[in-house]
């Protein structure tokens, strides 16, 4: 709808494909979505391989509670929501590691809905929450301001830095958490650092994708990558590329289709998944017939 208004007030350009790049807010949105898509793809690899695919969905709800709390306590949204999300992620990790009988899915369900409920309860008391519900739920790419973009860039750089620094430790802890300890890896610290990175990523993703779409941006790129490769480091690269491309193409297409940016990004990711799934099924069938691939686990 915003696009229609802009077109009405601006005469058409010569090349319609480059038209959106005339607008600063679009470029901000495009850069934000590309960065957020890539970072979600990066952390998503670890989340999917830890069997915690729904943590993105849960944390985005939990952080909604944190956003309300930071508003009520007059804290900066990014700081308050990240701390809240970090504590929620830490609680989920601790519960999963130390009480395996609870299970990751149940821990995510309990902690995040409790956090969401706290947010709702506080809103119903305060009744003056100024952040838009629609923007929080479905994302508002056009509302990404310079401050938001700076926050997105800073958090993304920090997340990439954390993953770079602890690549081996994160991989070992994800692959074999019990044994990693015996090789001198401080798995508790690795989990805590990862939880902090995840909370920060979900917070910066809220503005771009919205609470309801974050889970897809975290889960789909790594699944696409997993279907494409058996190597961990290649999975990381493909997942980041898929996430970033999904963000870029999604926002670009949303301009022309004039639909929600978050939904378009997710639909592009889904399209990538369908393509790779079909390709891998075809390849799998051919290769099974050829007998040069497939499980030979004795």
């Amino acid at each position, binding site marked *: 709808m915003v696009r229609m208004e802009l077109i009405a007030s601006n005469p058409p350009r010569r090349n319609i494909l480059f038209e959106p790049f005339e607008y600063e807010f679009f470029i901000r949105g495009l850069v934000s979505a590309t960065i957020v898509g890539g970072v979600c793809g990066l952390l998503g690899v670890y989340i999917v391989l830890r069997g915690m695919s729904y943590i993105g969905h849960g944390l985005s709800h939990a952080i909604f509670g944190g956003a309300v709390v930071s508003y009520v306590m007059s804290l900066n949204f990014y700081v308050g929501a990240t701390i809240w999300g970090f504590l929620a992620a830490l609680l989920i990790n601790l519960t999963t590691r130390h009480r395996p009988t609870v299970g990751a899915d149940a821990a995510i369900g309990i902690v995040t809905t409790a956090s969401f409920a706290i947010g709702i309860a506080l809103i119903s008391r305060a009744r003056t929450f100024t952040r838009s519900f629609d923007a929080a739920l479905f994302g508002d790419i056009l509302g990404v301001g310079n401050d938001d973009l700076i926050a997105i860039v800073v958090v993304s750089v920090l997340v990439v830095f954390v993953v770079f620094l602890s690549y081996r430790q994160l991989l070992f802890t994800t692959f074999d958490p019990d*044994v990693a300890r015996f090789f001198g890896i401080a798995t508790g610290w690795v989990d805590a650092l990862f939880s902090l990175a995840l909370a920060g990523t979900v917070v910066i993703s809220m503005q771009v994708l919205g609470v309801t779409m974050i889970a897809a941006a975290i889960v789909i790129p790594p699944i696409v990558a997993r279907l494409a490769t058996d190597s961990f480091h290649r999975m990381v690269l493909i997942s980041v590329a898929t996430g970033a491309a999904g963000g870029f193409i999604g926002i670009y297409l949303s301009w022309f289709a004039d639909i929600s940016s978050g939904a378009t990004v997710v639909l592009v990711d889904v399209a990538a998944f369908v393509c790779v799934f079909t390709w891998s099924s075809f390849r799998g069938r051919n290769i099974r017939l050829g007998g040069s691939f497939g*499980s030979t686990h004795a």
Partner: protein
Amino acid sequence: MLHPVPHLTDAGGPIVKFEDVTAGYQNEPAIRDVSFEISTGDFVGILGPSGSGKTTILRTILRDTRLFGGAVHVAGGVSPARSRVAYVPQLETVDWNFPVTVEEVVLMGVQGHRFWPWPTRSERARAQDLMDRLSIGEFAKRHIRRLSGGQQQRVFLARALAHDPALLLLDEPTNGVDIRTRDEILHLLDELNHQGITIVLTTHELNAVAAHLPWVICINETLIAAGSPSDIFTSEILMATYGAEMPVLEYQGLTLVAEQPHHFGQHADANGEGLKDGAHGADRIQSTSEEHLV
């Protein structure tokens, strides 16, 4: 058959010493009042039935259990990283769908202080050297699922060796593998032991594994016996360890254990002795190998 180094009691002092150790998980001890010593250069098998506390002993060496009483001494310090203890888990616990190649698994064990996520040239060279040493170098880029059981065990051995261990702990390394692979693994471990690495493994396989080792610790919550198989493979000790009658016999210099044959669907008589009908397999074993019985 292996050619084991004898138990080296005074070779280099104890690398592991348990003094009246009671340890377990949460509020429940899994082993009680266990005392033993493992000397530097030993090749030791911890033997016992399922749930007897074999894995608990390994995890207690690794400081991963709750210590209710006693003292554990591991040469080199408290931290497993500092004391150069490496652990090879049971293959059953590995996630075979995890996207990871042979080289990536081995590199997990290589401790470096790199900034970039990718390994340095020297780390890669070390990993390749270990893979070549264990004859899996050609599979470096292959997914771990696409290997045979013996090759998979070598991958995790290579990861452990990348840690440069003085003490190597293996949890049921021959579980679920075929006879050839089992022999392959035992010979490989024997080679590593001859290169100076102290090896402690758990097993419930009496003849296939434990009988070939120079030193065996029998456990069933408490320590039943420790010694060479020829000394401790007696019907009494095996009865105390497994709670079952096990005739012991000698074959080509090895002390082996026979199982009492089961006669499913046939019932013991009123006194609980013998069988009402059918072949008395136990009697047959006794009669054919009577001259070899210990």
